[in-house]
């Protein structure tokens, strides 16, 4: 039986404001428990919220970046439920009138095709605190440092049809958010979290199947695995004559399965109503225009520019714009080396390989863009060969020295003196009569072997182009 998967994503992003959504408390990560909780954050009677304008600006920035409608009049609501890490007994969120309305994201899939996925809305809300259930002898500890931090909840349309698309959407969202500098969006630290709504239906049907919601997944890989496992479960269930129940589930990575987390809380009636302590937020065209004017160049535009301006392939450009820092790094290397193609190769292959191996971010790169540009310059002016450059690159990791110092100190300078090269060529021709004979009989590819021998003899320092040319001359 053929099945179709329908996925909708709800992504929570922690906005990186300096203070909380409705109070002046700091949002610094990692402080001692309850040291960043003001009288408002602990919900003392009589305290009132005041909206952090920066959080609003960040939400509008996001909305403008994805071409979304901006709510000219957004309204905060109270979502009522009791939990010890929710001090007021209600969460302030936006129900009917979110700050960001309909927009969309275009993602590139592995086969190079593009797909546009609708964003239903993005609303501003406050985070809850943290409940700590260990180390308190059967009691629970409450840390309210996080309570009241601003979140942006971004809700997609149910237009995602595979785990691959879901991950592509999340990565794109992540990239845009980082470009906009509105959140660290680090899934492992919880500054970006994802709830996945999954349902399946028979191919060709238009009616949606019953969905389940998998809560709080904290890595792209787990999102992919959780979707695969949940789709499998739903298929097996239906094919065995069962029915999917609308419920909240949790993904267990160790067992690669989703399990039900049905509890009383899920059945809550949240009794939403407009927050009377806050006035509706009115946003005019001028404000939106001002936010728009401050947008950085976004990944899609940057990618288009990279392919046009630097003649990069779609793929290379896509890799290089995956983060704003990476793109900036690349542009410095390209500009200073004057060779965009080489710059793209070195950044997207050698450097990125190195970073990935060590789990470093581009901002933590031990090699600065200017150094990498110098290295490329030495390749271009024939001081070193591309191969020797890799050795220099390795050395740059260990030594703080400049590219030229390393080349000098290790004696890696390319041999371009024709007299010296001639000696090498003569020696190789003398030592390999069989191959020389084969070449003369028309077996052109043997030249590669002979060049290799020359390079070996020179410990890689000979200029391969010169060697090639001279070999051909002498063997004619």
């Amino acid at each position, binding site marked *: 039986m053929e099945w179709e998967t329908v996925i909708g994503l709800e992504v929570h992003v922690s906005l990186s404001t300096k203070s909380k959504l409705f109070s002046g408390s700091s949002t610094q990560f990692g402080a001692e428990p309850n040291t960043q909780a003001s009288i408002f954050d602990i919900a003392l009677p009589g*305290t009132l919220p005041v909206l952090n304008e920066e959080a609003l600006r960040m939400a509008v920035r996001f909305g403008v970046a994805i071409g979304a409608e901006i709510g000219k009049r957004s309204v905060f609501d109270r979502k009522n439920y009791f939990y010890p890490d929710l001090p*007021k007994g209600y969460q302030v969120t936006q129900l009917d009138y979110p700050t960001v309305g309909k927009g969309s994201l275009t993602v590139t899939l592995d086969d190079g095709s593009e797909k546009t996925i609708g964003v239903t809305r993005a609303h501003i809300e406050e985070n809850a605190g943290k409940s700590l259930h260990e180390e308190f002898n059967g009691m629970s500890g409450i840390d309210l440092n996080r309570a009241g931090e601003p979140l942006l909840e971004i809700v997609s349309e149910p237009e995602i049809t595979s785990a691959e698309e879901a991950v592509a959407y999340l990565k794109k969202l992540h990239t845009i958010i980082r470009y906009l500098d509105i959140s660290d969006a680090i899934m492992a630290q919880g500054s970006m979290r994802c709830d996945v709504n999954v349902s399946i239906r028979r191919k060709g049907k238009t009616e949606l199947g019953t969905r389940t919601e998998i809560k709080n997944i904290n890595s792209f890989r787990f999102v992919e695995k959780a979707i695969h496992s949940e789709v499998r479960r739903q298929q097996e269930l239906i094919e065995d004559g069962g029915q999917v129940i609308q419920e909240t589930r949790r993904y267990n990575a160790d067992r690669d399965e989703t399990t039900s987390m049905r509890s009383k809380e899920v059945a809550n009636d949240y009794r939403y109503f407009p927050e009377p302590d*806050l006035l509706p937020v009115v946003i005019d065209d001028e404000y939106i225009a001002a936010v728009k004017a401050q947008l950085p160049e976004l990944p899609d535009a940057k990618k288009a520019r990279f392919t046009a301006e630097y003649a990069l392939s779609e793929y290379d450009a896509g890799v290089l714009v995956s983060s704003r820092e990476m793109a900036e790094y690349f542009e410095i290397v390209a500009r200073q080396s004057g060779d965009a193609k080489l710059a793209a190769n070195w950044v997207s292959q050698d450097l990125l390989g190195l970073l990935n191996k060590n789990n470093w971010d581009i901002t933590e790169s031990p090699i600065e863009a200017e150094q990498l540009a110098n290295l490329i310059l030495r390749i271009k002016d024939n001081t070193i060969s591309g191969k020797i450059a890799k050795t220099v690159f390795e050395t740059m990791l260990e030594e703080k020295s400049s590219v030229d110092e390393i080349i000098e100190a290790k004696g890696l300078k390319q041999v371009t003196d024709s007299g010296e090269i001639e000696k090498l060529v003569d020696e190789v021709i003398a030592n390999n009569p069989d191959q020389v004979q084969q070449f003369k009989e028309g077996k052109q590819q043997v030249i590669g072997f002979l060049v290799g021998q020359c390079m070996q003899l020179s410990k890689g320092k000979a200029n391969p182009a010169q060697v090639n040319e001279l070999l051909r001359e002498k063997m004619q």
Partner: protein
Amino acid sequence: MINSTVAELSAALAAGDISSVEITQAYLNRIADLNGELNAFITVCEESALRQAAQADAARATGNNSPLLGIPLAHKDIFCSKDVLTTCGSRMLHNFISPYNAAVVERFNDAGAVLLGKTNMDEFAMGSSNETSFYGAVKNPWNNECVPGGSSGGSAAAVAADLCAMATGTDTGGSIRQPAAFCGVTGFKPSYGRVSRWGMIAFASSLDQAGPIAKSAEDAAIMMNTMAGLDIKDSTSIDKPVEDYTASLNKSLQGLRIGIPKQHFAKGLSAEVEQAVRNALAEYEKLGASIKEIDLPNSHLSVSAYYVVAPAEASANLSRFDGVRYGYRCEDPVDLEDMYKRTRSEGFGEEVKRRILIGTYALSAGFYDAYYRKAQKIRRLIKEDFNSAFKEVDVIVGPTSPHTAFKLGSKSDPVSMYLEDIYTIAVNLAGLPAISIPVGTANGLPMGMHIVGGDFEEAKVLNVAHQLQQNSDWHKQKPAVLASAKGEA
């Protein structure tokens, strides 16, 4: 001395005739004599009051002459006051010492006023008789078998019995004006947003407003000069310049157009209250005002709409009282749910629980449109009624309450209690300024008249009230029963 108005005390202090320490001590003595009987105060701050009084006297010696410097006042126990017990009349907060000051408290502190103590109130301001207080009912100084009204009953009784020179109150549906009427004092509810709600324990956020309870409209104006103004800590507070409310008190009422809503002079209004209000209206005519009957066609819906909106907001506002961080917590909870259930069952009184239930119900899935949304619609209609009325008249006048103070324990049915605020509630729904001033007594109990103004027309309302008080002495009448009390008069 203790029966003087703030204006008189201020003048006497400025002239050096008396000291703040002397006045403060006189009020403390009066409280010691009478509070046992009246139960108007929950907390008396004897030591700190005398300290503040001495500081005020010292400040005056260095040339400070601000109008409230050294004047003793009482705050309703709904205002958070730093290092002072702040109970909101509830067992839930029986142990809550606030670490911060409400904006209103801060402003009176900055003005140099002396805090005598915190006054009793209906629990979380929910009540019209002061009988729902965890700290027991307040007695009406005019007749100790009667209620003082509510919820600011402690403040009204304290001002009426000269336990303080002035007091603060809060008004969500009539909680300043109705007790002012029952106790024969002047009680003023400003426009919504005029006085900061920061630090005022919320009952119904979109209706709550703080205001003065005083011995005259002039005193209320003096207090408003300190209380009113934008506060960035309260997002609903209004960024509108504050007038000097005393400046226009003496404006002539020649040509003033008074509207009297026919709905407020209909069935249910007692004959003596109607007569008292009509007598006062006759005075206004003598002062050059014209009287015109007006129509507030949706006023019959106000109590119903109010008892959806206010409990709905309250049901969320009171969720923070969960036993987790402060306040009352039940003994030995076995788990979280048990802690929530018993803390809230034991910590809240009956009326508070009733309103939480009403509000929770009104907001529940499937009922929201029928109750909350509809009530908000009615609220807009009521506002429109007032808007069209104010096209024809300058102020709207009527009775504050249909009758005089009733006997303690006489209203056991919640709905009949809710109908107490029938004339005052619409004003909260519309966010307008309104005052209750005394207009005589019947059977030894005072009666109040209600004057409502347009949006942010505080100055006009105070002017209209003051002019009547300049030309009558109903506001000077004192409860006879207190003549037997010790101290001085």
